[in-house]
């Protein structure tokens, strides 16, 4: 699998405040990587470093030549004084109108095409942002807390969509989450972050890692509920089975 982004000995800081140090990781095409960590652990900063808006204080971020990045920010404050319809917002992403509508349909937001961005709810805006990222046919999809503002069925549908996107587009996906107790089993790798990489590996491995338990153990009594996604290959009309194992 071709490598999309490689992060080496990354150090990030705001002023004297060191947020990340000694971070090594790489993302390959077709893989889903979930980054978990407590608030202030540097998850969003790591994503911003991969996008390139925040410059490293040390180490480096190596991107594949001409890498197409689809980025879905944690939130986007749209000033009420800025009149901007969803259709115009998507055209700013330099996608053709047909592609934009197709992307909106994929995330179930085609009805929002002519709505004003500042009128959307948090969940609706999240979908539009995801559609925008998809429309540019990314090789690397970066999602910052994508389930924020979504209810349980909404989150489940989003996780399903993300898996499907990986299969359809073959893109690499990095997802940041603070939902410590809901780590998607579809993740190929989970990276546990707290200023540095505490541990990483297959979700099951990370769940039982002592570093993970030391970090999140008190909050969830050491339990990690996996969002299991049973592949039953059912056909149209039959939804996948979802079992939410809560061991807490």
């Amino acid at each position, binding site marked *: 699998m071709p490598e999309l982004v490689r992060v080496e000995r990354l150090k990030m800081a705001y002023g004297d405040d060191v947020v990340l140090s000694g971070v090594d990781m790489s993302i390959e095409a077709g893989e889903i990587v979930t980054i978990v960590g407590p608030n202030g652990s540097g998850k969003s900063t790591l994503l911003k470093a991969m996008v*390139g*808006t925040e410059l490293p204080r040390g180490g480096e971020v190596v991107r594949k030549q001409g890498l197409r990045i689809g*980025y879905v920010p944690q939130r986007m404050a749209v000033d009420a*004084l*800025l009149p*901007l319809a969803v259709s115009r917002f998507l055209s*700013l992403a330099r996608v053709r109108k047909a592609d934009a509508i197709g992307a909106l349909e994929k995330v179930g937001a085609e009805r929002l095409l002519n709505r004003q961005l500042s009128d959307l709810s948090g969940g609706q805006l999240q979908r539009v942002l995801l559609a925008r990222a998809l429309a540019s046919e990314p090789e690397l999809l970066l999602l910052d807390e994508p389930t924020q503002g979504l209810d349980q069925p909404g989150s489940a549908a989003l996780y399903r969509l993300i898996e499907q996107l990986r299969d359809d587009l073959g893109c690499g996906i990095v997802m940041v989450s603070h939902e410590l107790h809901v780590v998607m089993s579809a993740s190929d790798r989970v990276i546990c972050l707290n200023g540095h990489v505490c541990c990483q590996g297959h979700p099951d491995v990370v769940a039982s890692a002592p570093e993970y338990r030391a970090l999140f153990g008190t909050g969830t009594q050491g339990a990690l509920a996996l969002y299991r996604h049973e592949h039953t290959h059912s056909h149209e009309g039959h939804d996948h089975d979802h079992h939410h194992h809560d061991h807490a």
Partner: protein
Amino acid sequence: MLDDFLIRAALAALGVAFATAPLGCFVVWRRMAYFSDATAHVSLLGVAIALALNAPIFPSVLLVALVMGVVVVRLSGRGLATDTSLGVLAHSGLALGLVAVAFIPNIRISLDSFLFGDVLAVSRGDLAVIWLGAAAVVALVIWRWSAWLLVTLSPELAQSQNVKPRLEELILTLALALTVAVAIEVVGALLIGALLIIPAAAARPWSGSPERMAMIAVIFGVASTLGGLQVAFWLDTPAGPTMVVVAGAIFALSTLGAGLRYGWS
């Protein structure tokens, strides 16, 4: 025709409206109102430097406004530019400008004309500078339109499309500095901010797209400056402040009209 000082004043006012109104939309969208005020106030220091060196006003004001803008953008990049630090820069820059002018011996020009503008004293040469400057601002706004919209919405989204947020902020700052240099003689350092913000804010209720808002802002801006000039002529009041009063009245009417039409929210 250009011999008539009123015609020259009207043309200068028109040029200023074309520069301030579309750029003002970005000032409003990016919540840079205080930043633009600070840049305009500090530009008085540029006037003082030009008078001391007996140099032309425009390049000096442009340079000072540009330096101020770049300093603030750099500070905000490090999370230091708060309301407070902008306030410190704006007021100390303005005060420093006022003090510096007091040191210049045999000053021929009243400082009032740079604080509140003196559009009736605009010469043919000034007019050429104003229109060239305004044309440059309009060209920058049109050229960088989509990129600035993206950076305004989210620097990360912009960067993911290879639009460089820091570079765009720098070009926006250049456009703002140009606007300050263009407008200082017409409305004065203290009131430039008003011509940036008020037409854009008045245009908002009638706009469904950013492009439409910019165009309506231009119409309101032109109405404010030309209307203000006319009212100032009738009532024998200072032109710069009168333009801002007319702009304020347009804003009030626009808000009232939108409230009647779309309901109060």
